[in-house]
């Protein structure tokens, strides 16, 4: 039955995530929280691998989450669940291509949808930053999320310094900022090993 649940969760993700791969992140975070299949840290690792392997990021993440939950059948079911709504919606839109683009209500709905999708990714960004760079944790618990402090340190300085350096490299340094994300992922992995980021 876990496969049916997996299909349904990813069907919803494919249907409501607007704006490509990264837009599925808030949904995947929500699935992890409500089912307990994987933690937020697991999801971060999956995202890193998805960015560094060929294929669309959204599909890579769906495959990875599915594999984590139920092996190869899980990977297959999660991916098919995510693309099913796309196939249905696009086949319908293709049949009415001209009227779809000209319909004022479609444009009006997307006027609100686009900033909402960005807001959801922004919120995921906030909780990722807190989770990885500080000891503060936001966890789903009842209707209002619970904020707690875990670990010995409130601010993790090595992580914060690396984040600041990467922010500058990926945005402000000409030529370097145009490099593929995989370069920065490898760099961060090397720094993590050199300075024992996990304390291991």
């Amino acid at each position, binding site marked *: 039955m876990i496969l049916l649940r997996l299909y349904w969760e990813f069907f919803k993700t494919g249907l409501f995530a607007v704006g490509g791969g990264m837009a599925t992140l808030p949904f995947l975070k929500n699935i992890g929280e409500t089912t307990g299949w994987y933690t937020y840290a697991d999801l971060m690792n999956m995202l890193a691998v998805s960015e560094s392997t060929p294929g669309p990021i959204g599909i890579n993440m769906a495959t990875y989450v599915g594999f984590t939950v139920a092996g190869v059948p899980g990977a297959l079911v999660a991916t098919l669940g995510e693309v099913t709504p796309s196939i249905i919606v696009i086949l319908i839109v293709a049949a009415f291509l001209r009227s779809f683009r000209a319909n004022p209500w479609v444009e009006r709905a997307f006027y*609100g949808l686009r900033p909402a999708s960005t807001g959801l990714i*922004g919120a995921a960004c906030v909780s990722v930053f807190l989770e990885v760079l500080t000891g503060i944790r936001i966890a789903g618990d009842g209707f*209002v999320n619970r904020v707690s402090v875990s670990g010995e340190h409130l601010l993790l300085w090595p992580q914060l310094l690396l984040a600041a350096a990467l922010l500058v490299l990926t945005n402000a340094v000409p030529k370097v900022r145009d490099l593929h994300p995989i370069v920065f992922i490898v760099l961060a992995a090397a720094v993590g090993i050199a300075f024992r980021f996990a304390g291991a």
Partner: protein
Amino acid sequence: MTRERLQILRDLFVAFAKMGAITFGGGMAMLPILQREVVYLRHWATEEELLDYYAIGQCTPGIIAVNTSTFVGQKQAGIPGGIAATLGMVFPSLVFISIIAGLISNFADIPAVRNAFAGIQVCVCVLIFNATVKLLKKSVIDRRTAVIFSLVLAGSVVVNLSPVWFVLVSACAGAALKALEVRAVGTERDGQ
């Protein structure tokens, strides 16, 4: 099904599997590869058609690369074509990720691997932040979209609710705001 039709479906599957296997990153990274394979090499669509598909793929639900594949496939061979192209696009991901995920779970307990992933997580933070900023410039275009963005961001941090609800409410709010604006402009014009 005739042999020719099966041949078309096979071509679609193989072509899109190839594109899935050589694209890193999806979304925008995919467009140049789609242009080369679909427009110049195979003549499955014109440049303008592809850009139309791409634009619609961005503003319909789901993964942009998948939406565009479905579009091109259905134009070639109807509904089976759309499905064949999409399955081709996701096929390499299924193979690569299943292999890598299997390998990583075997090495997850090695200290160096754990330290490496702790470093990688920091990089992922920055990559998500950069993606948010890029999307922000495209989606927050005036005061009202800024309000929707802020409310959804704050609401989603504070309240434990499925993202589905934020998406549905915002689509309705956007439609209502735009419709009111159109009416207001209409009455203004009538008054003059």
